[in-house]
């Protein structure tokens, strides 16, 4: 019986884990499905895969047209993340299709998509659904006659050396990537209005997207820095997606090659690819930049319990704890730009939270002189970090009938007037009635 109840409690406490994509307590992915066009990729991209394995990921390699493919069984997802290294697949095997992949993402799982010049419509559609548009011309590649990587075959300017990284320590790690990243693949663009997608690696202003084997008949549609080589998407449910226009970017060949950017005297023994793909995969698999906010608390100054309702002009204290996931454990997150709003249709109070350096953020303020149903809102959106948006509803009531001032100083003349009138009337009545 005791055992049973223990099991029950155990089950209950783990129930949320089963519902969510990643364990909220350990957000890093563990089980990764890798879909390949053929198994030779396993060896040609082994450095990248080995780096994942060494970080503790459980990689499951399958062919993209494997008829037993399935992401979920009995309503549970079998994997935490998906790597699509199968650019030319027209149809997935098994129960996997476009909708299944998107549902996988929409339920909070991560995705890495890499394509090359042979990208199929299926893969392109996945990218489009995530907000990334590959070049419509299926034979086009990114060509750059200025910042190409100098290699053996002269005149092949599709091998691009790019060092136009996104400025974010969260996404690309604290160590600066010195060597340029070599890229050979197709171009994509992102909608500037789409605030979920980020260009991590952009092409140089002189790049364009065209078929390298034929002459340009018309001006290319995608040119310059509008071309994104590698983009990441953080969906609203904090699922992370990486889309790379080049599968070779991850290959051992480009990871190990020496690189010299055309027109630049610097020659590097090793390209920046290895550092780039490692760091960005850490971000995609939630080893970095994952925040959580817990212990949202508020109370009146001088009290400890959370009230069900505030009165106007109450002084209150608000606090919240924010932690960052380091890949292994929750570390305190320190920032000076976390703000709290006291919100009713518009923020009545907007205050920057001060931190004690141990993850506790707090602020005290006075409830505005407006009653209504307010919300404590913390909307923390920073580049690379998961978006934190907490809100907690709290009504604010006006004064009770006995909470107003009993005597108002400015009204003393009126009090005096009424009492003298009463006294006067009383005396007058006595005199009038009894004094003949």
């Amino acid at each position, binding site marked *: 019986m005791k055992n049973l109840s223990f099991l029950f409690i155990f089950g209950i406490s783990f129930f949320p884990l089963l519902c969510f994509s990643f364990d909220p307590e350990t957000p890093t992915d563990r089980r990764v499905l890798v879909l390949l066009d053929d198994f030779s990729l396993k060896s040609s991209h082994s450095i990248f895969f080995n780096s994942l394995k060494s970080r503790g990921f459980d990689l499951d390699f399958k062919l993209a047209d494997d008829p037993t493919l399935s992401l979920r069984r009995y309503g549970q997802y079998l994997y935490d993340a998906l790597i699509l290294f199968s650019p030319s697949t*027209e149809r997935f095997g098994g129960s996997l*299709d*476009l*909708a299944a992949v*998107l549902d996988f*993402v*929409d339920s909070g799982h991560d995705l890495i998509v890499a394509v090359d010049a042979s990208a199929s*419509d*299926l893969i*392109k*559609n996945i*990218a*489009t*659904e*995530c*907000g*990334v*548009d590959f070049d*419509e011309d299926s034979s086009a590649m990114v060509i750059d006659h200025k910042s190409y990587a100098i290699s053996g075959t002269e005149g092949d300017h599709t091998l691009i050396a790019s060092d136009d990284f996104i400025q974010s320590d969260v996404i690309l790690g604290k160590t600066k990537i010195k060597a340029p990243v070599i890229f050979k693949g197709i171009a994509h663009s*992102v*909608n500037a209005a*789409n*605030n*979920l*997608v980020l260009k991590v690696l952009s092409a140089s202003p002189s790049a364009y997207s065209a078929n390298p084997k034929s002459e340009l008949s018309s001006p290319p549609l995608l040119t310059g820095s509008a071309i994104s080589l590698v983009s990441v*998407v953080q*969906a*609203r*449910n904090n*699922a992370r997606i990486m889309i790379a226009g080049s599968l070779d970017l991850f290959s051992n060949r480009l990871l190990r090659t020496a690189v010299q950017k055309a027109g630049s005297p610097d020659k590097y023994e090793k390209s920046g690819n290895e550092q780039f793909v490692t760091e960005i995969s850490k971000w995609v698999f939630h080893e970095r930049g994952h925040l959580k906010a817990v212990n949202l608390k508020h109370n009146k100054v001088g009290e400890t319990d959370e009230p069900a*309702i505030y009165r106007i002009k109450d002084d209150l204290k608000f606090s919240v704890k924010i932690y960052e996931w380091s890949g292994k454990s929750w570390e305190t997150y320190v920032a000076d730009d976390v703000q709290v709003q006291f919100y*009713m*249709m518009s923020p009545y109070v907007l205050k920057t939270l001060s931190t004690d350096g141990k993850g506790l953020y707090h602020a005290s303020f006075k409830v505005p002189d407006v*009653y*209504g*149903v*307010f*919300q404590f809102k913390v909307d923390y959106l920073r580049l690379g970090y998961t978006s934190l948006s907490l809100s907690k*509803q709290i*009504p604010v*009531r*006006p004064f*009770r*009938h006995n909470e107003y001032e009993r005597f108002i100083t400015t009204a003393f003349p009126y009090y005096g007037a009424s009492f003298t009138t009463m006294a006067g009337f009383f005396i007058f009545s006595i005199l009038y009635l009894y004094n003949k």
Partner: protein
Amino acid sequence: MSAPEASSAAVPTLTTNNTLRNAFGGVLSFFILLLIGVLAFSIRLFSVIKYESVIHEFDPYFNYRVTQFLTKNGIYEFWNWFDDRTWYPLGRVIGGTVYPGLTLTAGTIWWLLNSLNIPLSVETVCVFTAPIFSAFASWATYLLTKEVKGAGAGLTAAVLLAMVPSYISRSVAGSYDNEAVAIFALIFTFYLYIKTLNTGSLFYATLNSIAYFYMVCSWGGYTFIINLIPMHVLLCIVTGRYSSRLYIAYAPLVVLGTLLAALVPVVGFNAVMTSEHFASFLVFIIIHVVALVYYIKGILSPKMFKVAVTLVVSVGLAVCCAVIAVLIALVASSPTKGWSGRSLSLLDPTYASKYIPIIASVSEHQPPTWPSYFMDINVLAFLVPAGIIACFLPLSDASSFVVLYIVTSVYFSGVMVRLMLVLAPAACITSGIALSQAFDVFTRSIKFQLPGVSSKTEVDAGETSSATKEAQNDAVKTEKAEETSKDRPSRKSKKKEREHVEKPSTKTKAEKKRLLALPLEASVISLLLLVFLGAFYVVHCVWAAAEAYSAPSIVLTSHSHDGLHVFDDFREAYAWLRHNTDVDDKVASWWDYGYQTTAMANRTVIVDNNTWNNTHIATVGTAMSSPEKAAWEIFHSLDVKYVLVVFGGLVGYPSDDINKFLWMVRIGGGVFPHIKEPDYLRDGQYRIDSQATPTMLNCLMYKLSYYRFVETDGKGFDRVRRTEIGKKYFKLTHFEEVFTTHHWMVRIYKLKPQKNRIRGKTKKSKSKTSSKSSGTRKKNPWL
């Protein structure tokens, strides 16, 4: 004026006989009143018997919820209640914005019963409050009419009021609204005013103020009292009927009444600040001036008085002009001229429809149609003129009040159908007077003609012989009236005599008898006809109570060839909301359903029937009239999770949201000008068929109402509008249907959450890719 009390003293030989008759009459009228009370109570129980013991309509649900809160939390919590479950996110200070009279009354009844160990639920008490108070109201009518024209008229008026359909419509069991107790308070206040006016007693004047206080607590209609009584006072002064009794009846009412009214939180300083109360203060000043003039007239010689008058009038006029000019300037500086919108629309019936669509949109604020007079007061409409004439024979202070009351209430009922309720008591009183006078004339004639009872008539005549002309005229009433009115306090008799002296009799008894005597046959036939009239009235009232006014409107029934159909969709929907949504979820609907949603589903609403914030309602109206995406954004900004629409197209329920939709457009457009009414009309016609405008066919209300409607019969035939709908096949992109009731009368939609991903560009080369992937691609609505 009342009965010929003086007669009994004048004819001492008949005293014993009269005492007996008085006692008999007293007991008889007591039992008659008791039966009237039972009648008033039981005629209102049709709704409970035909349906169930349930709260009706919209506002009663709010009152019920407030009463529950009161009984649970006590009066102080009620007073300070800030309700965060309505008008989200503004909230509403219930304690300060509600007329507490009804709630406190029902709460007190419940508390009393519970302390007597009668465990009734709050709902039961609320359901039966209105019938109980209708009994009180008929007794108050008896008292008032008795004060005016004697007990016979009183009983007749009471029995008429007990079953007047207009009043039944607002006070059937379950109709737990302010009017239920307010009509009693109104009549009782009038009674005490007349009583004070007749007796000149300060005791009654104080009671009158307290009754007025109760009225202020109960209903916003108290402004009718505080304007009608000053009007009457002014009328008395102008017609030279000023007396100290009038002063006593009026001055304490204004002073005490205003002080007491200011204690009610919802009135507060309005009792002295708004124009509705202005007339009472003006008349208060005038009555003092008049009192002063009478006083001075008493102590000065006539010549001196004339000099004083010219002096005072010239100075007084100048001062008055100055004061009035200042007042007008003050009043004119406020945009609404110091009047609230509802009152302004009373004075200028077109005001609301021109400027305040939110007032005009309520059906009970519309002017009534002619048939509704016959429906609501029936034969009383014919009897009222006769009653008015009877009030002029002779005109006394009290009867002039009744005339004034009926005239003003007829006007107000013509402005707003809801105020038919104020007309009903006045009509009952005048009709009661008319009927009893007529009966009296006819029975007296019969008695006079029939030889067998002529001796008795002689006795009657003898009784009245010493009375003055006024008393003789007053004697035109049923015997019961005479009997009960004998036991008047002598003080009053004295006062009467004093009045009588002023109007000496001119006609002799014989002359008058001849005048009143009608031919026997005519009397009998007229009596029969009157009885028929009464019978017709009773039949009509019972029919109205049983058929027309007992529907609770949350449960609907319809009879068809295959039997009775019950439409319980509203409660089905509210129960669904209560059981399937989170407790803090917000439900948006048109404001009509706000009270019901908070009371029955216990969910937070955006707007409700207390239409205090026009902008908020306009926001919801705008959302309903906008296309889906704009509407989604508006609702999302208000944290709305569910949208509820009422749709009658499947079963033919005419008061659904599509029929109310133009008001949403108007109210929304009044605040947000991008919503334009003509966009929704085709050539000025409101239609939802294929001729409807694209704006109409794409607005949220249309979509939510007719989503999947075509699946019901394959054609999409709307049985309310009697047409096929214009746009039959469409998908919702930002809303999803979560619940539709059995008869489709209530449909609940959920706002879809914001899309998880933002899509890239739409596929430009559809032709290239569609063949391969269109089958597998999920339609993504979010772009």
